[in-house]
């Protein structure tokens, strides 16, 4: 019962994050949404670890937090560079990657 609540919360957080990634124009907001998704996954990992009494999930969650910190660092650096070049961080105006 308790575990289901964790999972529900994680699913809600995930959905909010996905919405943020797809719908927001601001790059910083997209990064924050990615953080939400990652934390939703972390929540799942910890919840399943708690449900199965195996510590692996919690260790895995720690790794994810560390990597998320690195990812945010790289992401914010990119956003900063984009802002310096274009004076804007609106993602819908960025189409240099189009094939």
């Amino acid at each position: 019962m308790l575990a289901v609540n964790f999972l529900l919360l994680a699913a809600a957080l995930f959905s909010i994050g996905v919405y943020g990634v797809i719908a927001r124009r601001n790059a910083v907001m997209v990064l924050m949404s990615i953080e939400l998704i990652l934390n939703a996954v972390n929540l799942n990992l910890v919840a399943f670890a708690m449900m199965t009494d195996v510590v692996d999930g919690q260790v895995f969650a720690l790794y994810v937090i560390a990597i998320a910190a690195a990812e945010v660092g790289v992401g914010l650096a990119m956003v900063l560079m984009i802002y310096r070049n274009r004076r804007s961080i609106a993602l819908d105006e960025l189409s240099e990657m189009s094939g």
Partner: protein
Amino acid sequence: MLAADVAELSSGWFLENAWLIALIPMIAFAVIIAVGKHLPMKGSEVGLASMAASLVLSTGAMIQWVQRTNSASEGEEAAGLLQAFGRTLPRATEGEAEPFIEPVVHTWVWWSSGSLEFGIGSLGNGLTILLLWLVAFISLLVQIFSLDYVRGDRRYTHFFAAITLFSGGMLVMLMAPNMIQLILGWEIMGLCSFLLIGHWWEEEANSRAALKAFFTVRVGDVGLLVGTSIIFFGANAWAVDNLDSNGFDIAAIQAWALSGEAGSSFLVPGAIALFIACIGKSGQFPLHTWLPDAMAGPTPVSSLLHSSTMVVAGVFLVAQLYPVFWQAFDIGQGSLTFIAIIGAITIVIAALLAFVQDDIKKVLAYSTVSQLGYMMLGLGTGAWLPAVVHIFTHAFFKCCLFLCAGSVSHSGSHHSFDMKKDMGGLRKKMPITFTAWIVSTLALTGIFPFAGFWSKDEIIDNVGNNGYTVLMWVGLGGAVLTAMYMTRATYLTFFGEPRGAAAGEHHPDEEHAEEHEMEHISVGAPEPEPRSLGAAANAHADDDHGGHDDHHASDGPHESGPLLLIPIVILAFFALFAGLANPTPLASRFGEGIESMKKYVEPRATPVPFEEVIASGPGESIMIIDGRPSASPAAEEGEGEEGAKKSGCGFDAPEPGTACFFPGVSHAEPTFAKILLSLGVVAAGYAVAIAFNVAFYGRRNKHLVGLTERSKVLRGGFLFLKNKYYLDYLYENVIVRAVAHPISKATYWFNQHVIDAAVNDVGIGARKTGTWVYDNIDQKVVDGAVDGSGWIASEAGHGLQPTQSGKVSQYGALLFGAAAVGAIVLVLVNVS
């Protein structure tokens, strides 16, 4: 060989290392070719030094061979070791036969195929050692002569290189322990004769003569290859079984031929083929035509070629493989042999041809052919020893005669060899040359006590003694003819009034050639050659004019310089005394010991046990051989006292376990009457010839002058001889045309219609196949596949291009959408 087994034969460094005799000239050749032009004497010193070294080595080998032969008889007499071991060597029936002197063999294997080993090295027996010495000696003298004679020639270095290689080739052939090496030396000589005869190749006549010599000899050489092969297949099994040798080994071939196991199906064709090679090389009828043409070369070459190298090769081959010919042609039974007939024909026809030559060298050339006929006659009738002695003596006096002719042309007749035009009366101007010429002529005609007497008369005597009476008379007739044509040549050269260049005149060569041509027309002869003989002789004189022309035009004839005279004098000395090496007629007075050739050169016809011959040592079981049966099968059915005499080696098979290496040839007892007869006929020949020459060429007797123009019979005969029996016509116009032209035509037709057609068809087929493959497989299948894959990739890329919008949010949507789809699929799969 166990020391105790037989009387030990001495050997020595020179005998063991006889191969150096041939190796040194070969190296010298390479040195002359490589650096000769930069040496102070243009390479000639290398050639001379190599020949001198070979002479020293071969002299040493000769001395050691004599010691070896002596040691055999001494050892046997002193120790009697053979009897001590309970063994008795089978004896020839003529009392105490001397033991066989084994040749000293030294070989290296350079190639082996299975158990068949090909060796190269040296085989020293009496004949080989004698001729090695002879070749080295003559070659050295000829090279000394050449120093002055070809001085200033534009190819001076090459001349010495080729002449050194020439001698080297002869030495290689002489010492050959097997047929392969013999062929090697034989062919080296063929090549060098081509190079040297065509030395002045700028004249077409000379280069034609060189080609003619080469190809005529090649015709015979086919016989050598065929004969060697036949003998190999015949002898190989026997040689491997009994002597631990093979069918190329000369000693093995000798033993095989006399073993009694040699089938005549191998022996006879092999012997005939080998003799054809000798016909070509030694200028026997009917392949003698190249020898006179070979006069186109420089005189030293003619001299060397006609005395000790090249032409002697054929005689040597017969002498060395004598058992083969002995058995194949039944020489021992006194049958009329192929060899003897060819020899006899050659004696007469060549001697007759010598009468109509105006070129002094051509007279000598035909004389050589005739003398080679004597050698072959001797070999063909069982007179082995006199024939070999004749090789020995003939080399000296014929070499001397040629060098005299060279000396005359060099200093007396302004490079002309035409006796009628440019010589005459030279005896006062060139006394030393004249004396040497006379000595050699007397030696050639066999006058006592000159060298030829001891050999040629011995041949004639032995021919008669062996039962060939007709051939003996042919030989005597040849001796008469020899005396006559040599008288003619001598008279024309040294007596009478000086003519042309000998009288100090100097006329342009072209004019001379024309005159010569005119003479033939007046006789009415269709001139067979585009250039007349005199023109050919003169033509090469052109070439060496440049070097030493200056003194001739003014001085006229004079005696030659010391470099020319020294070899001539030495050779004349030998022409005088060489016969004393084997003075058979003196043997009755001074004992047999005086016949040193018989003792040291002729192999003994004594059977030898195999284990003594096999180099690897004696076999385990020593065969006990009883004394010979008192009467051999051949003797029982034989002809009285003749049969009793004719047994032993060469007449019946040797005892099992033994081998003969030489047949028991018989030797004639010279009698005073026979000597007188031969000397008498030669003297009569001289008398007639001198009388005729004085009358004819001295223009004393008007009836004789122009006889050939007046008498039809005589003119016919003259023209027949002048045209050399039309043999050249036969070869060049009939045989070459009849054989070569249809063959070449047929070959051309075959080439055009069969080979070309086949090639064309194949080509067309290939092109069609190629086109079809290109159109169908290459263009459609392979290209289609390649193009198709490219097209697919391109279209797929275009199709997917819109998804790559560059919008991060779109990428995210796709990513999450795909993840959602994947998750749904995962759930569905796991649930159901």
